[in-house]
């Protein structure tokens, strides 16, 4: 790699104590934590970036921001993270309650570069908890709605009970975005669509020639989604995906998250599909 590893700064090397001020249960295994600094606040995050969150005594994990408070709201120091309990650290963070203190380092990684979609149709495709890192994109676009074309949000989930932000997505739909939801396994009473999220792409209303697509979910889902978007006519450089690897240091020093020539914590997690496709389709990479 020709890029020089950045110097470690206080905010990136040492977890800063953040206190949980709100905890919202999203699904049976997923919560959204709002945290505020006890001492030194981290720099402002941008959509797509992640923090290393620490459960003291257990470990730390990379978690993208799922909302960004604005200075106008007077809450710019707050961080909002939606996380799913899948391992020891995320289970501990999932169990955190208001008043508890966790650690946070960051911001790390590349952004969704929402501003580059100004003047374009915006297509957001989320699978499972992949909606969480995409939520700030949606917020940013809707906060500046006239500057964008059509806004299409396509959401896939395992079951209706696993869908995130259901009330918020209903409001977004009412606000003029085209929102389509599909689940793998319908429950009794589910009247929505059943199948894979890629099937939502052909009938969605957007102009592929002037579209920027933001995709997040399991890697295989992103691969097939990107292929479906490209088949529809969206150029690969305008399809952005958020990759997940074993991020540890967050600044490109340790190499745990290497993906071919990239270090995902530094060169990602958001990478356009023209660059990521040759890498994620290689076995063992």
């Amino acid at each position, binding site marked *: 790699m020709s890029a020089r590893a950045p110097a470690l700064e206080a905010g990136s090397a040492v977890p800063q104590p953040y206190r949980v001020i709100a905890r919202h249960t999203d699904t049976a295994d997923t919560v959204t934590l709002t945290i505020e600094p006890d001492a030194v606040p981290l720099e402002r995050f941008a959509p797509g970036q992640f923090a290393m969150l620490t459960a003291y005594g257990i470990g730390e994990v990379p978690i993208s921001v799922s909302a960004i408070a604005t200075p106008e709201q007077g809450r710019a120091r707050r961080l909002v993270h939606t996380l799913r309990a899948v391992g020891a650290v995320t289970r501990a963070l999932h169990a955190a309650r208001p008043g508890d203190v966790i650690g946070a380092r960051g911001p790390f990684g590349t952004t969704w570069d929402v501003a580059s979609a100004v003047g374009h149709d915006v297509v957001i495709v989320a699978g499972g908890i992949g909606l969480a890192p995409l939520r700030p994109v949606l917020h940013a676009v809707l906060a500046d709605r006239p500057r964008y074309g059509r806004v299409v949000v396509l959401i*896939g989930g395992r079951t209706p009970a696993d869908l995130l932000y259901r009330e918020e997505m209903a409001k977004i739909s009412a606000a003029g975005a085209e929102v389509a939801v599909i689940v*793998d396994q319908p429950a009794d009473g589910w009247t929505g669509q059943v199948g894979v999220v890629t099937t939502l792409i052909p009938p969605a209303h957007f102009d592929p020639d002037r579209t920027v697509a933001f995709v997040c979910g399991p890697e*295989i889902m992103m691969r097939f989604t990107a292929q479906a978007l490209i088949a529809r006519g969206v150029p690969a450089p305008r399809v952005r995906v958020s990759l997940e690897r074993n991020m540890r240091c967050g600044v490109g020093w340790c190499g745990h998250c290497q993906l071919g020539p990239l270090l995902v914590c530094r060169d990602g997690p958001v990478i356009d599909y023209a660059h990521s496709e040759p890498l994620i389709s290689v076995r063992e990479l």
Partner: protein
Amino acid sequence: MSADLTDRVSALPFFAGLAPRLLRQLCAEGRLVRYPAGKRLFGEGGDADRFWLIEDGSVALDLRVPGRGDQVIETLGAGTVVGWSWLHPPYRWSFGAATRSPVQAVVFAAAAVRGRCDTDPAFGYAMLRLFTPVITERLQATRLRLLDLYATPAPAGRS
């Protein structure tokens, strides 16, 4: 067949690439239908004697599971076709299908379309080229769902 029906069918992407002569032949076997929500189009094991091009609305493919009723396997929306079991013997539906919302569609008489496929190789080849991707896309979607991508991963690391 009416010019209106041909226009309607060609307006949807599925048959849009069909040569005009073949499109007219196909539409000669079709008619416009409207169904209310909850209308059963066919049941598992029944004669696959029709297929539909959905103009508006949604159709659910389902399978009757003892003790659990009709389980929805997949939903199909506007612009998609319902039914390809009519293409191959034994011409029986593998699943059932019912409308989930009011549906407007073009229904085609499968035996007549099959007859044209047998007598006009160009027509038959065009039909196979149109329907084979439907089969492969639904197979691919099924395989993806078999992976259960959104399930909680098995605990392998610290995360």
